[in-house]
């Protein structure tokens, strides 16, 4: 066994050139071969790549999909996303527990199956969903659980769970997935037909500076949510000192309710890779990385295949489009279940083979990013837009959408509406128009931009979706009239408590305190002053956290406190006239002492 371990580690580390920056791949492969990454394995990896045990262990224990302890041969990860809760995912989990005879977090005694919960897996429009090994399983109901477990046990192959294939490229042999695209509305930018090479040819015909000028003229802004002008970012990197630069594509969409990039990666990967090549050309990068979230590992073989095809067509590699010096290639870096890696500096660290903890900025990645070299990190959708800008021209792109938000936007829609799925719509439409489109007219609230965004009430449905008013990375969760808005906020807080990287105290501790106080209110034990406390705490966490996660994580509570205050007030206990706290019960607080000491209180 020990010899075998040594052999495996040597093979795996050698495959990645004994390069410690490839730690994510090394750990993933060691785990795939050995089931888990033991302490002994970590020691050996550290020795082989000339790193330290603590660095390897840091990686293994940081990412939800890696484990330092043995798990079952198969791992079932049921999503804990709020949209799945709306569809009674708890009943599904209970059914799995019953069928397997274990609780969440445990492994069956025969070592076959481990049951876990995981954060949003990007299948909110077809939930409740689970990842079984790498295979996404959608529309799970409690009565399907029995047969899922039976097939898994009988065949020992999670792929055999796929009975019916999804539409479009989901049905390709290389994908072979039951996931459906659910594209409800196609626009002109992302989901329109695209001829590979058309954008690259136009880019190669002009100078890189002119490509950047086009993107600026198109007024393209980042689609991840923050909306930073894409042309400006590219220019910063282009002007940064140094010859070696990088283009990273952020395909780590983890915001609950977001699944638009999954559909782009499935249906329009050529457009994305075209955008990456164009962007690489513009900023002077010859190396690109697609950081693919671990939840989408099932798409990797297909994406590798598309990359191969593009290399064969001279749309990737050396001398792209016949132009000397236009060199660019892409490698895929798989993530491993960490929301925080969607934050650009966390993503960069992860690509470097480290824990995905964000780092201080400045310096910004455009100056010192991946391997401390100038790096642009763009959202999947942004890069697709960039390709289209080059194909069809900046003017064409700029006339779609609104003044400050040009182009179309992909919305991933889930929750209480009749037509969940992906919509490509021009920026600038109102929330009311949006709700009509998706069949959610009777909503009491919409969570715009996911948990880190804002929760708006009916009074604000006239607001416009776009950077001028209501920005969104794409996540739109419709909350119907039957929901308790505090349940939704609580689910989101749990998500942030789980996903905080733990580096800075305001986020690590503050989110836990917010959740605790919210739970107290939900349990009917809240006091009027708890609302003030929550408001102050939310402000503190937002102001003092290190990265975007903590700067937005109080939003589910902060925005509902603002927009749904009555829902909170309805649950509060009224203050007592005598100044005693209604939540303190002396008899209860003494009951343990009465039992242990066997006597009654001295004074009653």
């Amino acid at each position, binding site marked *: 066994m020990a010899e075998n371990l040594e052999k495996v580690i040597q093979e795996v580390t050698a495959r990645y050139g004994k390069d410690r920056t490839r730690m994510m791949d090394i750990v993933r492969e060691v785990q795939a071969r050995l089931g888990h990454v033991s302490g002994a394995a970590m020691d050996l990896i550290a020795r082989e790549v000339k790193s330290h045990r603590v660095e390897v262990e840091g990686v293994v224990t940081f990412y939800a999909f890696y484990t330092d302890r043995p798990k079952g041969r198969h791992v079932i990860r049921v999503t804990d996303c709020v949209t799945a809760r709306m569809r009674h995912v708890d009943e599904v989990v209970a059914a799995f527990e019953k069928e397997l005879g274990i609780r969440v977090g445990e492994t069956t005694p025969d070592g076959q199956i481990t049951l876990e919960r995981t954060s949003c897996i990007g299948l909110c429009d077809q939930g409740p969903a689970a990842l079984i090994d790498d295979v996404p399983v959608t529309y799970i109901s409690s009565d399907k659980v029995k047969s899922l477990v039976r097939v898994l046990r009988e065949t020992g192959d999670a792929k055999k769970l796929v009975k019916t294939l999804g539409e479009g490229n989901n049905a390709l042999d290389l994908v072979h997935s039951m996931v459906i695209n659910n594209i409800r509305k196609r626009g002109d930018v992302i989901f329109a037909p695209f001829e590979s090479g058309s954008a690259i040819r136009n880019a190669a015909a002009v100078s890189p500076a002119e490509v950047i000028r086009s993107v600026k003229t198109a007024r393209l802004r980042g689609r991840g949510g923050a909306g930073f002008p894409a042309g400006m970012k590219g220019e910063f990197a282009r002007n940064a000192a140094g010859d070696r630069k990088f283009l990273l594509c952020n395909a780590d969409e983890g915001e609950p309710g977001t699944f638009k990039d999954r559909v782009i990666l499935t249906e329009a990967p050529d457009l994305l890779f075209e955008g990456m090549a164009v962007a690489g050309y513009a900023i002077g990068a010859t190396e690109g990385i697609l950081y693919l979230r671990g939840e989408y590992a099932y798409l990797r073989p297909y994406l590798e295949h598309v990359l191969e095809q593009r290399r064969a067509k001279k749309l990737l590699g050396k001398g792209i489009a016949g132009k000397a010096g236009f060199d660019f290639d892409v490698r895929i870096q798989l993530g491993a279940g960490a929301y925080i890696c969607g934050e650009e500096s966390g993503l960069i660290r992860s690509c470097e083979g480290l824990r995905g903890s964000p780092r201080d900025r400045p310096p910004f990645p455009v100056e010192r990013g991946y391997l401390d070299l100038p790096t642009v990190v763009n959202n999947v959708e942004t890069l697709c837009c960039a390709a289209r800008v080059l194909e069809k021209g900046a003017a064409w792109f700029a006339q779609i959408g609104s003044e400050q938000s040009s182009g179309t936007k992909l919305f991933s829609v889930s929750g209480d509406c009749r037509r969940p799925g992906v919509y490509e719509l021009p920026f600038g439409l109102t929330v009311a128009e949006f709700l009509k489109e998706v069949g959610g007219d009777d909503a009491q609230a919409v969570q715009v931009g996911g948990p880190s965004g804002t929760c708006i009430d009916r009074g604000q449905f006239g607001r416009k979706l776009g950077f001028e008013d209501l920005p969104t990375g794409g996540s739109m969760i419709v909350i119907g009239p039957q929901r308790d808005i505090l349940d939704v906020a609580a689910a989101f807080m749990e998500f942030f408590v789980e996903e905080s990287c733990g580096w800075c105290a305001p986020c690590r501790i503050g989110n836990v305190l917010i959740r605790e106080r919210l739970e107290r209110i939900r349990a009917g034990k809240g006091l009027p002053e708890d609302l003030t406390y929550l408001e102050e705490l939310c402000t503190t966490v937002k102001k003092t956290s290190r990265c975007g996660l903590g700067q937005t994580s109080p939003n589910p509570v902060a925005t509902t406190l603002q927009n749904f205050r009555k829902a909170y007030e309805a649950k509060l206990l009224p*203050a007592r006239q*005598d*100044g*005693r*706290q209604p*939540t*303190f019960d*002396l008899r*209860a*607080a*003494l*009951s*343990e*002492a*009465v039992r*242990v*000491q*066997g*006597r009654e*209180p*001295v*004074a009653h």
Partner: protein
Amino acid sequence: MAKPKVATASLAGCFGCHMSILDIDDRILKLAELVEFHKSPINDIKKFSERCLVGIIEGGCCNEENVHVLQDFRKNCDLLISLGDCATMGGLPAMRNHVPLEECLAEAYLHGPTVHNPAKQIPNDPEIPLILDKVYPLHEVVKIDLHLPGCPPPADAIWEVLVALLNNKPIDLKYGLLRYD
């Protein structure tokens, strides 16, 4: 006009906060001119006989007597000040909050490494107040008007707060006076 009255008490605390009150040094003479000390360990008055403007309480609630004293203060004082880290957060005594009461007593009186208790007796005299399941900060038991943190809060902070209250001025503690150590 009669001078406003101030009452103080130490519950599950170490009297360190009271030491800090005394640490205002000669300003205590000035304070005595401004206010009259009512129920307080400083003068050993045991019972409230008059209404007080301010009640200053050190320490959290660890037993039933603490709760009764605190409720008595709430009843007899216009303003309650939670003084110091034990009062505001439970402080050191609250370290037991993570240990069930039964284990806590056993460790303290039976199994602790320095315990000498041949009779294996846990104190249980009927006059000893029963202890609570955990240590509570004051504001979880009654409404508290002001929290002054610190272990102990600096004497200057206590002075500033009292002077501001007595003159009906807003409290504005300078940097360094509001601290948690």
